[in-house]
């Protein structure tokens, strides 16, 4: 290179460079920046979230592939062989086909326990990451929504990988196309629980030891007793409420319809969808309000 302007760094200390730094004329008017942020602030936070996700995507990918494999082999194939030899079928299908959609829903919902708990504490408290965008035209409510949607993108990938593995295990009798609906159903189920969890996490002032409690006494029971391994009707009636209040059960019942054609009355299907959507909307609204209050006081 002979042209020194290409090899030498620009010296920012000349007055001209400093003036360009302070006012290049390339920045839109503040009103324009504010208008863009009012419209797209939530998306800017999603963009940020995705950029940070790149750093850990490889390790999370191994987890997103490994977890379905382990569950489907252990419970679907291993336990499934035992069940199929013993009672024949469950809900009219082999045990693998019965349990696979439930495992998809459960594992995606359980992932909220990692994504919408400690990272929320990091945002408010440990690394104060939320307070960076808070000083910009982006609002706390948009930060809440952006964080939530970033995590939902991750869950979409996670559910899609699980579904692909189900297809590979031949666990989708209704066909590849229809069964792909488990992906949005899985994300909706995680959204229903995750939004509320995010709202709750945003109210915590201390070190977040409550999350271990949530993990053990809320998430695990949903996994074990919400119709995952056996139909809800196989449990005593006085335990059915665990299923009814659990996004995992509602999501699982929907997922079973699209993967193997489980039969349910129409009204119940509608209830599942309304329940999950209502929980999601309520959770997001609560989180937005909580973020706004906490960051503005």
């Amino acid at each position, binding site marked *: 290179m002979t042209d020194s302007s290409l090899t030498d760094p620009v010296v920012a200390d000349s007055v001209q460079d400093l003036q360009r730094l302070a006012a290049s004329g*390339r920045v839109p008017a503040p009103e324009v920046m504010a208008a863009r942020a009012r419209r797209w602030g939530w998306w800017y936070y999603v963009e940020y979230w995705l950029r940070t996700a790149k*750093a850990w995507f490889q390790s999370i990918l191994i987890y997103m592939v490994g977890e379905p494999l382990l569950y489907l082999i252990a419970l679907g194939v291993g336990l499934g062989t035992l069940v199929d030899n013993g009672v024949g079928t469950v809900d009219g299908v082999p045990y693998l086909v019965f349990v696979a959609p439930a495992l998809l829903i459960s594992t995606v919902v359980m992932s909220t326990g990692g994504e919408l708990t400690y990272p929320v504490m990091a945002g408010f408290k440990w690394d104060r990451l939320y307070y960076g965008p808070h000083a910009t*035209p982006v609002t706390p409510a948009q930060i809440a929504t952006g964080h939530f949607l970033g995590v939902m993108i991750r869950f979409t990938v996670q559910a899609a990988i699980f579904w692909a593995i189900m297809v590979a295990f031949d666990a989708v009798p209704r066909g590849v196309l229809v069964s792909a609906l488990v992906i949005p159903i899985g994300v909706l189920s995680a959204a229903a629980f995750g939004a509320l969890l995010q709202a709750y996490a945003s109210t915590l002032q201390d070190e977040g030891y409550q999350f271990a409690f949530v993990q053990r006494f809320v998430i695990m029971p949903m996994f074990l007793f919400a119709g995952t391994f056996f139909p809800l009707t196989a449990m005593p009636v006085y335990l059915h409420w665990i299923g009814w209040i659990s996004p995992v059960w509602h999501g699982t019942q929907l997922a079973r319809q699209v993967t193997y054609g489980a039969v349910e009355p129409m009204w119940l299907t509608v209830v599942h969808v309304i329940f999950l959507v209502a929980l999601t909307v309520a959770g997001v609204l609560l989180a937005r309000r909580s973020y706004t209050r906490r960051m503005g006081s």
Partner: protein
Amino acid sequence: MPPVTAAGPGEPIVVAEDLTKVYGDNRAVDGISFSISQGESFGLLGPNGAGKSTTMRMIGGTLTRTSGTMRVAGLDPAERGPEVRAHLGVVPQQDNLDEELTVRDNLIVYGRYFGLPHSYLRTKADELIEFAQLTEKAKAKTTALSGGMKRRLTIARALVNEPKLLLLDEPTTGLDPQARHVLWDRLFRLKEVGVTLVVTTHFMDEAEQLCDRLIVIDHGRIMAEGSPRSLIREHSTREVVEVRFGAQRNAAVVDQLEDVATRLEVLPDRILVYTDDGEGALEEITARGLNPITSLVRRSSLEDVFLRLTGRTLVD
């Protein structure tokens, strides 16, 4: 060059009247009024907990005020928060950079929050990295930076939207002397090209270095206002003699010093003798056979102003 803002130099860009913030029983900010002009470097000097950061957050509208009025570039931050913050660059007291992202990505991500396009941010990030003297660290994760480097990156980040007004909350707290001077130099240069600086600090030397004009705040109220020089002239003498007689003798000696000084301050470890002629006063003290263990003649500083106004030192 185009002007930095529509408002000309000297016109007020921030106007606060009777600004108040109450938390429960605590009046963190208790009815303060001030006005900051375009192009000015304005300081809020006071001890920790005086209400400086609270005031700063109300300028950006990230904290709701209890009462009073606030106008930033003619807008009320409580109602037009995003519009006001689009005018601002904010350097918070605690760094909140994403340590997992690179230096460059921290700048780009932040610029996106202002709706700035990638085409602009690609070149802007390079200019800002240059300004922050972080060229060699551009691709490094932020976690690898020293404290001074992180502060410079935070300042560079605050400039991504080419703000009229830069708010700096305790910009050099926790930095070593050399890092502080590098940072002050960066801020001087911004001031030279017309960026308005608002600085909170509990360091008198920082206030003297950086601020054209400042308010001294204590317990949420303004104790004094003016340029560093005028505040010293108004509230202190030209010089100060610091004498130490040892903790036991300090109290006993005070009576014999009264007529030497315009004013005396007795601190636990030393006595401050305020006078316009420091050397003369010290000679007189020695002539009286008082024999201080150590003595020092210096010019009055904002520390003395603060001590006079509040009866306390800035940094305890």
